[in-house]
């Protein structure tokens, strides 16, 4: 069996195991927390009777393990169940939110990844000179700005003052792609600001690291220009670390955007999850958690595979 396939298979197996562990973590974790869905829902109008009724109706009185197994069974048969709080079909409601999140993440990534890598290469090319300092400085500033601050600044300047873009990123079914794009411009800008720096700095670091190698000197002694050296000889060997950090940030774009969603009222997974967390809506929290974990795991596997493919030693074993 080809080592790569073998490795991918291994990682997938490990990933599934991890996923299962995550499900345990979330389920019993949320259970361990004080308060439950019934309480959270009734709030001030929680009379003992109503509480008992609701608990009964939500099946909160059944034994814990039984409920987990029941959930697991459903999950394995592709049934995410219904939300405790409003009985909506989870798969359906999440599906829409996930779509939105992916839409946002996709555009943020499309812009930020190439940009980050180009900037990283440039910074490495002019290492220590003013372009490097400028790029590094700016990215440093963006990385040091909390998301919500960046969000509000962008919102204040571009939406409220200049009326360039809508302040809310409302998107809903039946909206054309261009309407949607117009709607999400601001959050995309903010997300790009957030993830750009990390990827760019890693690219730069990786390139500079490779620049130490003997074969770079060989390339220079072959009479190649600086950019040619970086692009043809350094970058191919810097792919692995870059890919890893890129994947890390892609994962972040999917699972870490709660704040941006709050600021721009974007109907994504984050807000959805937070709502259900506060309402202790276990099945939904569970489902979201699994999706997030899955995204993270898959992206990691992807990163591994790519960096393997980028490395001839592993691609073509002796």
């Amino acid at each position: 069996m080809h080592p790569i396939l073998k490795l991918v298979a291994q990682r997938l197996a490990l990933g599934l195991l991890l996923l299962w562990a995550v499900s345990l973590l979330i389920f019993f974790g949320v259970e361990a927390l004080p308060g439950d869905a019934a309480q959270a829902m009734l709030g001030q109008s929680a009379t003992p009777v109503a509480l008992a009724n609701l608990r009964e109706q939500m099946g909160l009185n059944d034994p814990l393990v039984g409920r987990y197994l029941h959930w697991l069974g459903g999950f394995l048969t592709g049934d995410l169940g219904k939300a405790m709080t409003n009985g909506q079909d989870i798969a359906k409601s999440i599906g829409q939110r996930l779509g939105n999140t992916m839409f946002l993440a996709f555009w943020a990534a499309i812009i930020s990844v190439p940009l980050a890598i180009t900037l990283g290469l440039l910074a490495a090319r002019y290492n220590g000179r003013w372009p490097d300092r400028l790029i590094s400085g700016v990215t440093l500033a963006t990385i040091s700005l909390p998301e919500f601050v960046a969000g509000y600044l962008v919102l204040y300047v571009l939406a409220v003052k200049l009326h360039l873009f809508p302040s809310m990123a409302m998107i809903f079914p039946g909206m054309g792609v261009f309407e949607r794009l117009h709607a999400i411009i601001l959050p995309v800008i903010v997300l790009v600001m957030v993830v750009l720096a990390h990827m760019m700095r890693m690219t730069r670091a990786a390139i500079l690291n490779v620049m130490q190698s003997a074969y770079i000197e060989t390339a220079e002694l072959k009479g190649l220009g600086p950019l040619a050296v970086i692009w043809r000889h350094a970058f191919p060997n810097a792919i692995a670390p870059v890919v890893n950090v890129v994947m890390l940030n892609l994962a972040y774009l999917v699972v870490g955007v709660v704040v941006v969603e709050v600021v721009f009222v974007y109907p994504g997974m984050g807000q959805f999850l937070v709502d259900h967390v506060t309402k202790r809506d276990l099945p939904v929290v569970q489902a979201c958690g699994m999706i997030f974990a899955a995204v993270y795991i898959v992206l990691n596997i992807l990163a591994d595979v790519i960096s393997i493919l980028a490395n001839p030693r592993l691609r073509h074993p002796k």
Partner: protein
Amino acid sequence: MSRIPLSALIGLVITGAFFFLALTAQWVAPYDMAAIMGGVWDPISSEHWLGTDAIGRDLLTRMIYGGQVTIFVATCSTILSFVLGSILGFTAATAGGWVDQVMSRLVDLVMAVPTLILALVILTAVSVSVPTLIIVMGLLDSTRVFRLSRAVAVDITVMDYVEAARLRGEGQRWVIFNEILPNALSPLVAELGLRFIFAVLFISTLSFLGLGVQPPLADWGGLVKENATGLVYGIPAALAPAICIAVLAISVNLVADWVLARTTSLKGGRGG
């Protein structure tokens, strides 16, 4: 040590200043933190250098105390995460074998669930207080420290001098504390800076989402939240703490970069 680049120097000075203010807040702050002494968002004036906040408290005072909270929490959680993360990381690296496997997998497990979400889940349930914040943030962040310190340590354990120590019959503790730690220090110190920043940004974000410290206490993130509504009307109150967060982060970054630059020439390097 003799020649520090200007950028790092600036970073050091500013960071130092912030810590000084944090330590001396009680004496430096012009007013009582909770005292309501003006209208809502009074403009900058001689008695209120930064104006007043959303319910008429002196903003400068709030900022100074906010800095205290932010820096205190960030520092403590960072320290916690490092002590925990690095010790475990080194142990995993030196012990190797199944110990390493188990630990690494557990860390993977925790990291597979997005940090913010995890924090939200925990903090919505347990009553939010400074200690809980520190512990939660520290624990969550220690996973990343674990990864780094393990990577660095693995690089070092393959060195001949570690083998020599083993051949001499040295124990685990000596190897960790006398052979590995001194050489892993610099990359860790650099990472310390970055982790600290993440802690600052993280607690700010938590407070922004309403899970920060309790009023009348407020960290910078909380202050931004309290005054954010004004932003849309050009009320700068929210910007001041926001800028503080950014400036602190940047200056620490500058220092970290410098430490990093000094260490890359060193064996072990960043350790990824």
